[in-house]
């Protein structure tokens, strides 16, 4: 760390602004702390950012669409520029979506960017969830962030469903019909639930304005709040990191927010936006003019929901027709795969950190991640869950697969039913074995070194292979303290028992700064 810098007596405009804010809000310490915050730079830590940036793009393009969309069930006769629908009766919602697509400048491209962003949003949330799961980042003290994340996933899926149902086209309207039937299938309260949500018997009176409010106000509001909390917790607790040279449970090594991390993140936001813009312009999505307006007496084959609901479509298709009837009541078959199954899955998902802590008896806090192979049971369970999900997801598109590959539709259904039972256990066993074998291999290398291929004969006659020890990992960039400049009166602190490496020394030099800042607090000050 270099010596303390001078106070600049003749400030330029930027410094003036800085001091103006500081006079009013006392910003310097906070600014420094946050600009110097260190973020580790493994590539897999950026997956959550894909979700964050997709969300921002959803907000921006969504606002543009709200300026043109009319969420009304009122029937009108279409008279826009799309000839094959001229004179057809349809709702205002559908007509305004056609207007956005054909008669608004940049309407179609923003509509498509919006829809592609929704697909990428949920996809990146799930990939991020998988990364967090398989590296054990959800362990204490980050369980609350995990819960928030699962909540974000559920809300994102709901938001997507609401969004693509707004145009009131044949494809999404069919999905709404199925949703009403699912609500209706809930025992005891089902018919009430369906009537309350849809305002009467399906299709209900004026359902679209309600869906609109849910989609543009309620759920985005909750999403914003939860994302804020998710990031705030992450900021406060600092990001986890993989073990490596110079890294311990008590430090974080990486780039400071300003300037490197900020520029990389900003660039990544631009790249996300670019990918979505290219998709939105070059790949057509949800061409509602081809489906026609929603009509409960019509349907198209190959009707699927968007991909993130596909696993529920699959579970519905695979479920055998087991309906319980008796004593004047019915529990319909569709209740189990569409209401009970996702309830169980998401509950297990949410409770997972606590379940794992209970079963392992491990209540320690962790800031370092594990490689998946280091936790074979967790990784195997995760692989099992993923395979279960994949069988369901593929079954959701089983008619498309049947048509494309000329497979019998009935055979696809049976394959899904049987696959759902036998594939997950196989995935568990295979993954577990794989993890254990990888551990053994790592152990071999650590213990015996890397095989060189050079065979020698010992004087006693045996042939042995020479091994070379694996080179120790060391950091390939110099490790520097977080703060470039020290405050003049930083206190020294004795060794806190964490060793004498360069990382430790650098870290300790910094800790004095923090302690000094919180002098007044009880207990010596904590960050």
């Amino acid at each position, binding site marked *: 760390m270099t010596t303390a810098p001078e106070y600049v007596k003749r400030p330029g405009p930027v410094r003036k602004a800085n001091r103006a804010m500081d006079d009013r809000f006392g910003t310097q310490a906070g600014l420094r702390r946050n600009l110097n915050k260190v973020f580790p730079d493994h*590539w*897999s830590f*950026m*997956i959550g950012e*894909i979700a964050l940036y997709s969300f921002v793009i959803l907000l921006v393009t969504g606002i543009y669409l709200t300026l043109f969309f009319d969420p009304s069930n009122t029937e009108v006769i279409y008279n826009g520029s799309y*000839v*094959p*629908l*001229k*004179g*057809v009766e349809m709702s205002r919602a559908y007509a305004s979506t056609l207007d956005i*697509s054909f008669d608004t400048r940049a309407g*179609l491209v923003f509509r*498509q960017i919006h829809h*592609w962003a929704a*697909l*990428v949003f949920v*996809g*990146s949330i799930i*990939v991020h969830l998988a990364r967090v799961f398989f590296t054990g980042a959800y362990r204490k003290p980050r369980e609350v962030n995990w819960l928030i994340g699962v909540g974000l996933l559920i809300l994102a899926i709901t938001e997507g469903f609401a969004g693509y149902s707004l145009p009131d086209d*044949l*494809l999404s309207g069919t999905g709404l019909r199925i949703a009403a039937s699912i609500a209706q299938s809930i025992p005891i309260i089902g018919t009430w639930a369906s009537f309350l949500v849809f305002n009467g018997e399906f299709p209900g009176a004026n359902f679209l304005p309600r869906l609109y409010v849910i989609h543009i106000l309620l759920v985005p509001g909750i999403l914003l709040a939860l994302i804020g909390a998710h990031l705030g917790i992450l900021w406060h607790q600092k990001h986890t990191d993989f073990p490596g040279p110079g890294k311990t449970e008590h430090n974080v090594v990486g780039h400071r927010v300003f300037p490197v991390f900020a520029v*990389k993140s900003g*660039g*990544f936001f631009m*790249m*996300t936006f670019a*990918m*979505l813009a290219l*998709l939105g*312009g*070059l*790949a*057509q*999505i*949800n*061409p509602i003019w*081809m*489906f*026609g307006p929603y*009509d409960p*007496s*019509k*349907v*198209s*084959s*190959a*009707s*699927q*929901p*968007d*991909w993130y609901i*596909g696993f529920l479509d699959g579970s519905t298709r695979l479920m055998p027709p087991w309906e319980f009837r008796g004593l004047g009541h019915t529990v319909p078959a569709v209740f189990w795969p569409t209401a009970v199954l996702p309830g169980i899955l998401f509950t297990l998902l949410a409770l997972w950190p606590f379940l794992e802590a209970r079963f392992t008896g491990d209540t320690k806090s962790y800031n370092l991640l594990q490689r998946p192979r280091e936790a074979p049971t967790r990784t195997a369970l995760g692989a099992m869950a993923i395979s279960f999900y994949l069988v369901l997801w593929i079954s959701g*598109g089983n*008619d*498309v697969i049947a*048509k494309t590959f000329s497979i*019998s*539709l*009935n055979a696809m259904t049976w394959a899904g039913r049987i696959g759902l039972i036998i594939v997950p256990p196989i995935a568990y066993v295979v993954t577990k074995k794989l993890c254990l074998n990888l551990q053994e291999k790592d152990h071999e290398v650590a213990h015996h070194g890397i095989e060189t291929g050079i065979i020698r004969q010992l004087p006693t006659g045996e042939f042995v292979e020479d091994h070379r020890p694996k080179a120790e990992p060391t950091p390939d960039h110099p490790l520097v303290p977080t703060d470039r400049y020290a405050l003049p009166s930083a206190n020294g602190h004795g060794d806190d028992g964490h060793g004498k490496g360069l990382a430790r020394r650098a870290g300790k030099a910094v800790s004095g700064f923090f302690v000094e800042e919180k002098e007044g607090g009880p207990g010596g000050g904590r960050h």
Partner: protein
Amino acid sequence: MTESSGTSPDTPPEPTSTAVTEPVAAADASAAPEPAAAAASTAVAAGDRSPTRRLARRRSARGQGQSARRRRRSSALVLMFGLLATGVLWTVLAPGGNAAQTADANEAVRQGRALYLQGCSSCHGLGGGGSTTGPSLVGVGAAAVDFQVSTGRMPLAAPAAQADRKPPIYSRTQIDQLSAYVSSLGGGPEVPKVTDEALNDADLSHGGELYRANCAQCHQAVAQGAPLTYGKFAPSLNESTPTQIIEAMRTGPESMPVFGDRQINEEDAIAVAAYVRHLNETRSPGGFSLGKYGPVPEGLLGLLVGVGGLLAVCLWIGARQKV
């Protein structure tokens, strides 16, 4: 009656081969010019010692001057009489078609029957009445035959859950002949007359509404096709001509229901065909259409290219070595 050669059915059979016995019997071999010319050439080629040569020598020795001319005139007359007799007898005695049909139509039916016997009768029976391997064609109509054969579905290449569209093996003329023959067996829907102007004048949005009400559930909203049960499927309509579409509606091939003209009249049928033509020809305004198959390919692209591509960007950003 007489058998025609099956090798080149497209060319009209030569008169000489069908009228094989009569004119030769009727006319004097020596007087008929053609056989005589043939005989003369063979005589020249064969050499002096052949019997024909001797005959020719005797003839030439005998026939100089007036008697030769007289003989030539009479042989021409005999030939013409023979040909006329053949033609009359043929017309009277040949197997009939519809008496109201013109001679061309009769010809088509005849040719169609020949084609049918060769290529279809093994499954559909010698008289079109069906067999254990193929249904009866009595009453299916020209439209059904035109549809099945022009889409290549018939003749069936191999037994399967369903016949696939494949390149047709019969030419347009042959298909017309087959249709004429089968139609002659018992009537049925005629081949629809679909003109380009009718298609261009059709009400596209009405056709769209009819399509979505009657066709989209099997053939998919954008006519890309979909599976039915147990390996059957409703095919994509990308390659279907408007005529074929209307024929399919009228005849209900395989699993497809029948949409008769009291249910969908001719004008509406043309509107539906025009709408399908529009679906096949229209360009996608939003970019590449991903097979027009809906959320499944969209989801795959979004995950593989969208999320996958961005993961690749993550790898690039996080890479340690200089890039």
